Each structure stands twice: as C-alpha cells, then as structure tokens.
C-alpha cells in the first residue's frame, strides 16, 4: 500500500461515521482508528426523545428499500406516478423507482393488496431497508 492510498484511507475514514477500520491484504495490515470521539454529540443524542413505534393496521406491511438511493414515484419527472394511495396493486406490478448511482431500479410488489400510504416523499434520499410504503395485503 502506497503512502497516498493510506492518506486517502485516513481521509475517507475521517469523513464518515466510521470510528475504526482494519484492512488486511497480501501480508499487509493497516488499522485506522479515530483519536477523538465526540462525547457532546452522544449526550445530545441520548437526550433526544425516543420516537414512538407506530403500529401498523391489521394485514398491513411495510415495503422497504432494497438499496441506498433516491426514491421516485414516477418513471419521469413529469410522468404520472406508478401508484396512488387507494390503488389496488398486484404481485409483479411496479411500485416505484430507486435511483442508485444513476441506475434506475424498478421495484415490484411481491404482494396483492392496496396502497395505504407513502412514508417518503418523491425525490427523497432513502437508506437500505428504510420503510417506504405501507400496503394492505389481500
């Protein structure tokens, strides 16, 4: 590993929330650990109110994002959304798009059911596993 790569690695770790990273490759091992932890931030987080876990209605399930990306309800900016609240949906029907690294991924329903509500806005960034939509299964 060259000095520049090590330098890049340190910068990368520093810019993320990772506190410690260890890489082992071809007989070479490097461990990068952040020297400081931000205790003020931890205290602040502990003081935040615990969000209430919302209970889902009977027969309802959440659809989660399969990847990190951007949530779109329509195939094009001025296009009509794939689904609306109240729509009946079928297994295999496209529900929305997640854009990840410029790849537009059509996400299909695995269930037959009805659209109850959206949990994110069109164009919003989403995390892996984040609930996006509630549907009622039939």
């Amino acid at each position, binding site marked *: 590993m060259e000095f520049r*790569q090590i330098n*890049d690695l340190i*910068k*990368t770790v*520093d*810019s*993320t929330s990772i506190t410690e990273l260890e890489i082992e*490759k071809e007989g070479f091992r490097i461990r990068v650990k952040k020297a400081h932890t931000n205790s003020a931030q931890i205290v602040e987080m502990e003081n935040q109110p615990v969000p209430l876990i919302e209970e889902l209605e009977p027969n309802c399930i959440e659809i989660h994002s*399969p*990847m*990190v*990306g*951007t949530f779109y309800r329509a*195939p*094009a*900016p*001025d*296009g009509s959304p794939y689904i609306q609240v109240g729509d009946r949906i079928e297994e*295999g029907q*496209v529900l929305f798009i997640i*854009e*990840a*690294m*410029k*790849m*537009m*991924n*059509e*996400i*299909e329903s695995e269930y037959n059911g009805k659209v109850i509500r959206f949990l994110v806005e069109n164009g919003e*960034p989403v995390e892996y596993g984040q609930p996006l939509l509630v549907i009622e299964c039939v």
Partner: protein
Amino acid sequence: MAVDVRTVNLGYKNILTLEIYDSLDSTNTFGKQRIRAGCSHGTVVWALEQTAGRGRRDRTWVSNNTSLTFSILWRFPDYSKIPLLPLTVGLGIVQILHTITEDVRVKWPNDLWIGSKKLGGMLGESMMLNGDLWVILGIGINVNRHGEGLDFPHVSLQEAVGERFIRFGVLNLILEGADRGFSMLEEGVSDLNERFRQYGNFIDETIVVIEGEKRWEAVARAVLPDGRLLVESVDGLQSVLPDEVSVRFRH
C-alpha cells in the same frame, strides 16, 4: 418496430449474443420486451437507428447512423452489486478505447468524455421478472457524428481522432470493454479509486459541484469503494452521490 433481426454469436464471458435491428424506438424499452420474452443473460440489442432513445429521467438521446446505441441485458443474483455496474462498465470501456485514443476518460460516475465534451453515456435500469433481477444497460456513443441538435458540448470519435470508424468495429471493441467491466464487478473491484485515477478525468482537479440551485467549487479527491465521490471544499471533505449532484470542470 423491429422487423428484420440478425443474430450474431459473440464469444465474451458475459456478452454472448448480439441482436441487430434496423430501427427501434428505444433499445432499453425494447430490451425490457426481450427480457419478458425470455432472452438469455448476456444478450445485446443494437438498433442501427434509434428513434426515441431515452437518457436519464427521460431526457431524449437521438441517434442515427453516425452513432452507436445498444442495450446490454444481464441477470443478477441480487441488488448488492448493481449500483457499481455503470462505473465498472465505464472503466472497462474507456480502458479498451485507449487503443483508439487515450484522451477518452470516464467522467464520474459513468459518462465518457474527451476533454470537456461528451463522447457517450449510459442509462442503466433494472427490473424483476419471475423473481429474477435483470439489468438493462443502455449505452450511446458518438462515432462519426458531426453533432448538431444536442444541447450539451459533445464530440465523436471521428472528431477526436480525425478518421471515420466502422460502427460494427467500434461496437465489438466496446462490448469487449463492457465484458471486462462486468468481470471487474463480479470479481469484486477493490481498487476503484486507482482505476479512476488512471482512466477518470477529475481526481485532484478543481471541479464545480452542482446541487440543485447551489453551485460550489471543490477538488475531487477520490472515488470511494461504494462509488461516491470524495470532494474537498472550503468546508472540508465530504462525499457526494451522483443522484444528488452533478459535476463539471471549472473552466
């Protein structure tokens, strides 16, 4: 719509069959039809003429007999590797286009540029069919174009090198590059940043980052393992996603 189809068997690892059509509205849209009709992994759909090509978020991509427009259809086991696919395919294509000119670079994340002009681009989409995950990777390259009718600075291989190219020859070269890009992804790309240093055009350059209405200057520092770009501005280091920002040269 497609009538006259010719099929060519290709010998690459993950690009196996080339289907040639006289004219298609969009190779990505038609590619989805081919997937539904049961085509196999590694099929390429090439339209000699594309009449209603699509770019990202439905921008149009016009094409005639001076450019190449085709879509590669690949089956994937899951979503985990899909976001990096356009990056590794872009790198594979640029690597092989260096046999024509080393001025071709990957503009992060997946455009092909010569200098500050666009040579080509990609539109990647995915869809599920009967539990299988399919990627439709549409690629457009200006081969012999003397461009008009495009609203951004663009360039063709002919303009860059000073000679005309046979489209089928360039297509073969690009497919070989795309195949290498697919293998790179399959084997696990551990040196994305090094490859972008070699074949990309932004690392250690000052760029303009465009984030909605906001524009700010930064120096591109690295491409992170997940494909994000690490930039350094007066506010320090931060990583950006291509879904949120676009980047330009400062000049």
